[in-house]
């Protein structure tokens, strides 16, 4: 299979009043064309920051400070410019802002957690989707080479818009396409629904509409950030099966960000587990559930209550994640102070290494190449005395 996205040592920082936050730390993974890659982790582990980095939507306080994001887009790769090119791949982090923007919606689209706050409450759902269609059509009508020089909204545009205030941005065909899209995502009576405002939609319907908007530009990569977290479980099942269906139809690649291991198990081909900004384990779905290597993954899996047995899940992960400010991060493994298998070796920060002979399964843990040795075990919490006092 061909790759679509290769993240290499992606690193992102947030500047806050309390100092720099190491939100994403040297994260590497590959998303193949047509596959679904799951990113799981608990809140604050850096999943969303990773997705926002890929989409180029980091808030003002956040910056990508290192690494690269190779995205396969042959046309842009063939266009001369300042960006780094590797064959058919372009490094997104080197693209100028306007070129980055023109990829958004057309090549890379995003679906957010809370559908209610992602739509403009004052416009109809149909018109908002039609706008997405319109943007896509205008973008593809222009040749790629000029697209990087997207017109800026200057004095000329202001005068024109003031003199011709009724000039509609959205054409009739875009409106029709919006209705088609609503139908595509399973919204009954789409023509009537398109004229309604977001408040008239239920959460599940609105999430469908957001998916419609995301696929309007026929993107090749969909970043879905907790797309079902705000929904009831029966609606979640509907949305997940819709995503599956769209993926099968269009060959779209999906990066699914979620805290719910069940959702990943249901939807993804491969999974990356994040902890304290790092990708601590990466594996095909069956390997991750059947043979997890990183003690954090193991703890996370055992913490999930199993619906089919009635045992209370074991609270095997005690304590909480280290803070991500530069001064809070321990020198060694970030997980060592909570790790039941921490050894003296963990005082050095582990590298990401392949597990056994397979390069599709890797972990950032010393246990990838040696077994747990009780003689070298650290007392629980002894790894980072300093950090414990912090908590």
């Amino acid at each position, binding site marked *: 299979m061909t790759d679509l996205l290769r993240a290499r040592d992606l690193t992102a920082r947030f500047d806050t009043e309390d100092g720099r936050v190491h939100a994403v730390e040297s994260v590497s993974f590959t998303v193949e064309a047509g596959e679904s890659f799951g990113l799981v982790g*608990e*809140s604050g582990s850096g999943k969303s920051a990773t997705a926002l980095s890929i989409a180029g939507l980091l808030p003002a306080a956040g910056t990508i400070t290192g690494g690269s994001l190779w995205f396969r887009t042959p046309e842009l790769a063939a266009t001369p410019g300042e960006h780094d090119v590797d064959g058919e791949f372009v490094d997104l982090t080197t693209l100028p802002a306007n070129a980055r923007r023109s990829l958004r919606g057309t090549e890379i689209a995003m679906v957010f957690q809370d559908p209610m706050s992602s739509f403009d409450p004052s416009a109809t759902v149909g018109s908002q989707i039609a706008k997405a269609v319109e943007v896509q059509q205008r973008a593809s009508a222009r040749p790629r080479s000029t697209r990087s020089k997207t017109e800026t909204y200057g004095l000329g545009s202001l005068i024109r818009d003031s003199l011709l205030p009724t000039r509609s941005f959205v054409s009739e065909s875009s409106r029709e396409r919006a209705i088609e899209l609503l139908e595509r995502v399973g919204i*009954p*009576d789409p023509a*009537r629904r398109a004229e309604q405002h977001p408040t008239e939609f*239920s959460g*599940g*319907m609105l999430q469908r509409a957001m998916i419609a908007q995301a696929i309007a530009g026929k993107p090749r990569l969909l970043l879905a950030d907790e797309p079902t977290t705000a929904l*009831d*479980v*029966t*609606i*979640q*099942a*509907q949305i*997940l*099966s819709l995503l599956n269906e769209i993926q099968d139809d269009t060959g779209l690649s999906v990066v699914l960000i979620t*805290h*719910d*291991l*069940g*959702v*990943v*198990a*249901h*939807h993804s081909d491969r999974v990356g587990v994040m902890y304290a900004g790092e990708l601590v384990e990466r594996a095909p*779905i*069956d390997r*991750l*559930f*059947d043979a997890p290597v990183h003690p954090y993954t193991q*703890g*996370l*899996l*055992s*913490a*999930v*209550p*199993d*619906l*089919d*047995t*009635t*045992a*209370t*899940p*074991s*609270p*095997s*992960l*005690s304590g*909480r994640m280290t803070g991500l400010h530069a001064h809070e991060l321990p020198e060694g493994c970030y997980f060592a102070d909570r790790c039941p298998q921490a050894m003296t070796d963990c005082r050095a920060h582990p590298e990401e290494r392949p597990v056994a002979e397979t390069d599709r399964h890797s972990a950032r843990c010393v246990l990838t190449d040696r077994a747990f040795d009780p003689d070298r075990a650290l007392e629980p919490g002894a790894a980072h005395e300093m950090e414990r006092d912090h908590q």
Partner: protein
Amino acid sequence: MTDQPLIRAAGLTKRFTDGVSVLDRLRGREGSSITAVDDCSLSIERGETVGLVGESGCGKSTTGQLLLGLQEPTAGSVAFDGQPIAAQSAAERRRFRQETAIVFQEPFSSLDPRMTVEEIICEPLVVNDIETESERHSRARDLLDRVELSAAMATRYPHELSGGQCQRVAIARALALEPSFIVLDEPVSALDVSVQAQILSLLDELQAELELTYLCITHDLSVVSSLCDRVAVMYLGELIEVGPLERVFDAPAHPYTSALLESVPRARANERDRSIDHLEGALPSPSDPPSGCRFHTRCPKLIPPADIDIDQSTYRAIFRLRSQIARGESVALDEFDCTGCSATVTQAIEAATEALNAGDRATALDRLDTTFESVCETTPPDEHTTPHHVSCHLHADAHCRDHNCE
């Protein structure tokens, strides 16, 4: 101590009326009303944990508040330890308040940001004027210890705590008056999975040590499976299935319960191969609940009339068409695939198509209704007690006789 259940709710109903001013009332106008809880009966024995599950807006939280007397029921009654709470004197109500407690979903917003952890935990003692200040101080340490927080936490403010720690403080506060009954309203929904497991096991330990009785309100079935002894499933304000955990989870009697259980994605390797037969549509509005069985609009096991022979998928397709016609939406009835249908079905569809093409929706609908109307649409199901409490026509004696169910 008596041998009757600690909590017994009978025919509990709560109706919220909206948008009625005094003027409207004088004119005899009625506002729109929502029946959040409709004729629910539930008993909770001492020391057990009952899980109340359902989707958002089904009336779970309102039920919890009714049981604690935090809201007045429109009809029905709640008895605590055999005594109806509506008939309590002021002193009795005060004692009842001490005997019961609630832990809310949002750990941050349920703690006063301007109080220290110790002040928060001692607040119930202060309000009820129990113990001296120094006694309260030592009590707070005990409670912190009980919920596995260090004594150093006592002087912290809520914003300095993590979500899990906040929830522990909320639990400590609920325990302050040594209650016998605690309503846990989505106790772990806002927490990460590793913290969830910690809180669930804490709740489990506390129950064993202090002989607590819990009502655990949650939308998360996996929480129910790890904490509860019995399960009560709610749909649109009605309790549709109540039974022991193992029975309900292993052999759900109501189609809604099975759909709910099936919809939960399991965290294991072969999950992708499990096909989910997911429910159609969304929860109907509680202000205008469907007729008959409230679940019939989404039910995958609608009961066709006894005189027609039809498979479920065709029957559901016809049901969808009928609701579209009733709502005034455009339908393509002539494209309906009748292959393999019995003569009665084909005739009814043809007649309706003819009427619809002639522009007569009412006749078309009437023709379809006469042939296809399900008992689920017309009659609210009775509560059946086999295998456990379930409100569904599938468990009616007549249906079971015809279909040889167990």
